[in-house]
């Protein structure tokens, strides 16, 4: 049963990510990415990371993808794009990496790494959200605050970049 769920999610994730790259219409690509995000969230649920699954759907599918769709529809693209002319190099690099990944996966059986003991941060009795919040607000409090600063900087940067007239006629169309 566990394997059934995993293979279902894995198959859909792999197929949707291939569709994201292969489809020509950017809107279809974004919708394929939406399917992929939902199935990654399902995979998180099978890995007992329920809070991350919820965050994945809210942030990725709810915020990031809507932003993408806004921009795609705003730009109103007429011409279809072709592949980059460097695609033979990309195919070579991709094939080499796939071969390497397959070899490493097949070698997995003889390199059995011992499981390290619990570092004291895993709180087994609590739920996923509680233990995550526990660690996030104690050990990772400073990175958490820095992350909020990062979001503020990104917000200001996005507004400044997308504003129409920065410095008079500097960004006007030549």
């Amino acid at each position, binding site marked *: 049963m566990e394997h059934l769920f995993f293979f279902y999610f894995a198959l859909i994730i792999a197929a949707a990510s291939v569709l994201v790259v292969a489809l020509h219409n950017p809107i279809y690509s974004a919708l394929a990415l939406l399917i992929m995000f939902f199935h990654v969230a399902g995979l998180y649920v099978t890995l007992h990371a329920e809070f991350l699954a919820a965050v*994945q759907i809210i942030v990725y599918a709810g915020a990031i993808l809507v932003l993408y769709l806004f921009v795609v529809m705003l730009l109103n693209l007429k011409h279809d794009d072709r*592949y980059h002319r460097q695609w033979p190099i990309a*195919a070579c690099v991709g094939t080499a990496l796939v071969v390497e990944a397959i070899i490493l996966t097949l070698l997995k059986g003889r390199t059995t790494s011992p499981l390290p003991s619990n570092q004291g941060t895993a709180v087994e009795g609590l739920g996923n959200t509680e233990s995550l919040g526990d660690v996030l607000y104690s050990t990772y409090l400073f990175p958490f605050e820095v992350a909020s600063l990062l979001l503020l900087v990104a917000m200001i940067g996005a507004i400044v970049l997308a504003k129409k007239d920065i410095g008079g006629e500097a960004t006007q169309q030549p």
Partner: protein
Amino acid sequence: MIPLSYYLTLSAVVFLTGLVGVLIRRNIIIILLSVELMLNATNINFVAFSQYFHNINGQVFVFFALTVAAAEVAVGLAIVIALYRAKSTINVDEFQLLKW
């Protein structure tokens, strides 16, 4: 219990798909979507290792990766809009301002 290598294989497949997408596509929006694919592949790795080592720190890192992804999308799409306003295209081959 599903072996950890299955998750790693899935993550590698998704990451390679994103890498190939960045390399072969010319539409800048598809390139940004492929970057999202790669970030998701690393997130799958983080969560799988977090589950198998019974260590919650991996999930915290997914949290931060998500924050960075949100910031990257906001700034990246703003740059796309600024580029489109300047050049009326989103084909990356047309952006040659720094090449001479």
